[in-house]
């Protein structure tokens, strides 16, 4: 007898929860779009609203950390930060399901051909700069690689380290998948050409895995964002220039990309306030630098979608 009651209670609970879920969802969906208007756009006044930022997993830790600080200071604002990848973030912001789309690449590079119109509706907010360095296993004995040498390595023309001044050892490539934003940046600014998916090359999307494999595999070469560099791998110079924040800022070291936060149309209310906070000196010199990015206000050069660099 009792058991049937318990059983029924379970059903009831499940149903109420499901019903609850529906209500809540409605409330949620209603809240998000209304977020922007409800937030006052006057600077200094308290802002309110809730929004979602999703996309690049590389940018996620930064946005999350900053959003937590921002929410602590503005308790009327609620920000959800989600991953999913640059492509997912751009699709979602273009469709309007999220308010900010985080991306490692310009929207125009992902939303091409039939989707080019979508890219036009998006407004770019460049919040940080990320630089990449070619890294090798410690045993290869190479300190510097020229552009041509890197191209030969990543297109498979050179397969032994002795041909680029290292010791007699087979080169093992650790590349990224074709869809990766990191790979796109590296190809565009370090190689100047597309690399190839060579037989036998390893492909990993995740920086941690790339670092682990490069550090463990004899003769391995890959590339990492500066924040992932540590003692286990060796960062090589590019055309004699060391990969560090100063060289990137002055424009001497070319392998870098912007981290973008896209909004659909000009941002308003809480979204706008948050993006302004993101670009404030407090965040740029604090969290951005701490997490291994280069502050956007330190950059002495700018670059457009086509890759044309100009002095600020």
């Amino acid at each position, binding site marked *: 007898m009792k058991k049937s009651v318990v059983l029924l209670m379970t059903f009831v609970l499940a149903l109420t929860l499901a019903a609850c*879920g529906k209500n809540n969802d409605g409330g949620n969906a209603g809240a998000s779009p209304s977020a922007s208007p409800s937030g006052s756009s006057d600077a200094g006044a308290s802002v309110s609203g809730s929004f979602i930022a999703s996309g690049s997993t590389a940018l996620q830790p930064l946005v*999350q950390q900053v959003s937590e600080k921002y929410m602590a200071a503005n308790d009327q604002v609620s920000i959800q930060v989600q991953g999913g990848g640059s492509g997912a973030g751009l699709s979602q912001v273009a469709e309007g399901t999220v308010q900010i789309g985080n991306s490692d690449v310009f929207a125009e590079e992902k939303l091409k051909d039939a989707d080019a119109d979508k890219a036009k509706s998006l407004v770019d907010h460049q919040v940080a700069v990320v630089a990449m360095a070619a890294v090798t296993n410690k045993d290869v004995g190479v300190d510097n690689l020229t552009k041509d040498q890197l191209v030969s390595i990543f297109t498979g023309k050179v397969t032994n380290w002795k041909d680029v001044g290292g010791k007699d050892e087979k080169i093992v490539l650790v590349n990224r998948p074709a869809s990766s934003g990191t790979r796109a940046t590296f190809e565009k600014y370090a190689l100047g050409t597309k690399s190839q998916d060579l037989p036998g090359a390893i492909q990993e999307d995740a920086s941690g895995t790339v670092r682990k494999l490069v550090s463990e595999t004899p003769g391995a070469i890959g590339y990492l964002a500066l924040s992932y560099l540590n003692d286990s791998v060796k960062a090589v110079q590019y055309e004699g220039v060391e990969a560090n924040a100063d060289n990137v800022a002055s424009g001497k070291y070319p392998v870098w990309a912007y981290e973008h936060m896209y909004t659909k149309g000009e941002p308003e209310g809480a979204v706008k306030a948050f993006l302004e906070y993101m670009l404030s000196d407090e965040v740029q010199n604090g969290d951005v630098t701490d997490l291994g990015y280069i502050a956007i206000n330190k950059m002495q050069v700018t670059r457009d979608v086509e890759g044309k660099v100009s002095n600020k």
Partner: protein
Amino acid sequence: MKAKTVDRIMTGVIVGVAVLIIAVLAGLLGYLLVRGLRHISLDFLLSPPQTIKAGGGIGPQLFNSLFLLVLTMIITIPLGLGAGIYMSEYAKPNRLTAFIRLIVEVLSSFPSIVVGLFGLLVIVNMFGLGFSLFSGALALTVFNLPLMVRITEQSLRSVPREQKEAGLALGLSRWRTITSVLLPVAIPSIVTGTILAAGRVFGEAAALLFTAGMSSPRLDFSDWNPLHHTSPLNPFRPAETLAVHIWKINSEGLAPDAAQIAAGASAVLVITVLIFNLGARWLGRVLYRKLTASK
């Protein structure tokens, strides 16, 4: 004479294989526990993760895993019981039943990544639930449901026929016979099966990458109102589970102690699964004794 030698050799081989399997398991557990246990402390289990500093914990992730499990079970158990009861009690041996049986079979062998992608397409994007615990729970339901159906069906079928007939003979309706005669007898094995299935949910990652998301917003553990954004009980917030967290810090971890955290979290995950396994057995036995003695 020769046959006996062959027999002895093959006996040796089979015993050897059994020993090998035990050794693999022991090695696996030993490796995970030895590397991981050093990092497990109360602080590690309760504190939130750190992005770049050392000393982060897995508190929210552990909570998310458990909460997601509860959510999934709340959805799965009634549905699974219902479909299981149909399969064992109401299904007539006809084409339709054969078809449904086929569906359960296909559903249970779907790759979890396909289920995850389906969740991304339909639950996350189309229903607009976003990356959330609820999306994750629905995706997990999809591939936990067939398991639950099978467990219920088998447990009900193993109840002696006489018990059912006795119930019907007393003038109880079929449904009443099922809920008050058959189910109580079958409950120990249903519970055991359910907990073992729950272990699988606990460790699932591929489907959750696309549905529950890979981020864990700040949680305010003093706020238990499920409608608040920072409340741990809000089912519509994105949530990274323990298994997903291991995947993430292994691949993207920036903290200097990422490897140790991964090892510690893996150990916690394995220990939890161990507890589930032992708990399922123990609970099944206790329930069996209680239900059969008190009746």
